[in-house]
């Protein structure tokens, strides 16, 4: 079992499925799946529309450990209906976060002096285009409930987002991801609100050519998001690297983790607005102009640069570090 866990660690996060990611993000042999395939909680809506179903409705939820912390894990499966949030999928996601802060409340009630490094944490591997259109009302509601849960976690349970799957994290879930305490991405990860295809459809190919993947990544990809400060840690594409990144965040005090948030306080909003004002000033025509503005004169070379060289040399926007 543990040798198997070892193999998972070296595996590409991008290539792995949601379950392998969930198992590999927890400590060896500690992951227990909740509401898994055995429960057969598939979508009640998709069959009526003649669409395929999945026993886990496209999300793996469960509990494991990270060091001395209980780790509540959700991992979306991008290959099933684009990782979209339907009713069951959403309920599983909302409830795994709810379980985390309920566990926190219980544990603190029992042991008021519980050291920080033993308190629960949440990690969500986002791989989703957002709401599942076939069951959009329930899916949207789940987005709102999830935001609520994040609020309930505030001051108690750190919520960490991970983005490294092929689908990326788009649509309403782009907002949800932005509301987490910290975001870890690989260069293959993508984060945004409106998906590239939708922008092209609405605004035309001249505005945004979704088939130009280099452009798509310059606007939504891990490296760009790291420079912008929309992601806190950029890691290699292995399960181990994501796990180490998670370890880095969870080794911090809650106060330190809270400082990683990109939004959520007046100061943060002011800082974002200052950056925005500065960017309007330079009127960028491409992400590369923003990178140059951030202090990277050879902006074009950043795209193909190896990750460790990138992390060593890149300059981020002022409010990013």
């Amino acid at each position, binding site marked *: 079992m543990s040798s198997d866990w070892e193999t998972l660690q070296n595996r590409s996060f991008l290539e792995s499925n949601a379950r392998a990611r969930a198992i590999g993000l927890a400590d060896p042999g500690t992951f227990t799946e909740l509401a898994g395939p055995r429960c057969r909680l*598939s979508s009640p809506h998709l069959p009526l529309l003649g669409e*395929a*179903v*999945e*026993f886990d409705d496209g999300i793996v939820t469960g509990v494991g450990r990270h060091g001395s912390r209980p780790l509540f894990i959700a991992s979306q499966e991008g*290959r099933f209906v684009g990782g979209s949030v339907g009713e069951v999928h959403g309920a599983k996601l909302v409830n795994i976060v709810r379980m985390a802060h309920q566990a926190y409340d219980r544990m603190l009630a029992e042991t008021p002096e519980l050291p920080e490094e033993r308190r629960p944490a949440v990690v969500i591997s986002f791989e989703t285009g957002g709401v599942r259109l076939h069951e959009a009302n329930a899916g949207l509601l789940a987005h709102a409930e999830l935001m609520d849960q994040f609020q309930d976690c505030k001051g108690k349970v750190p919520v960490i987002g991970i983005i490294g799957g092929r689908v990326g994290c788009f649509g309403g879930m782009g907002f949800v991801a932005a509301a987490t305490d910290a975001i870890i991405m690989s260069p293959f990860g993508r984060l945004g609100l409106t998906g590239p295809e939708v922008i092209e459809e609405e605004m035309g190919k001249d505005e945004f050519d979704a088939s130009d993947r280099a452009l798509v990544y310059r606007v939504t990809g891990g490296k760009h998001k790291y420079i912008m400060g929309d992601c806190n840690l950029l890691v290699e594409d292995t399960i181990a690297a994501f796990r180490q990144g998670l370890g880095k965040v969870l080794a911090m005090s809650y106060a330190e983790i809270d400082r990683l948030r990109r939004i959520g306080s007046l100061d943060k909003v002011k800082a974002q607005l200052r950056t925005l004002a500065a960017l309007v000033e330079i009127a960028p025509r491409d992400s590369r102009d923003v990178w140059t503005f951030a202090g990277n004169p050879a902006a074009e070379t950043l795209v193909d640069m190896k990750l460790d060289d990138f992390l060593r040399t890149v300059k981020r926007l002022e409010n990013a570090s």
Partner: protein
Amino acid sequence: MAKKLRELTFELKAESPSALPTDFLHYGVVGSGDMEVIMEHQELAGAVRIIVRTPVAGFDEVWRRVLERFVNQTGMADARIEINDNNATPVVVTLRLHQALAEIAEGGARHV
């Protein structure tokens, strides 16, 4: 009105059966052109009951032939199999079923 997801049920018996050596196994992802399967032990007097949920119509006979071959090749017995399909071709179905069995042989420890 869109057509509904179809559910097919097959009751098959291998020529030289042996019982499924596990309680429960889940394998696969319902990606496009792919499928997932649950295999469970169930006393069925040596038979295998297979339930297939698929959006595809017109291939019921192909499903029967593919599953018959699998059951005969593996000699599976006393098992309940549930498949969620999304346009998997016969080769993918066969591959995933065999991979699921291999996973059982390895103690359910592989995560592909």
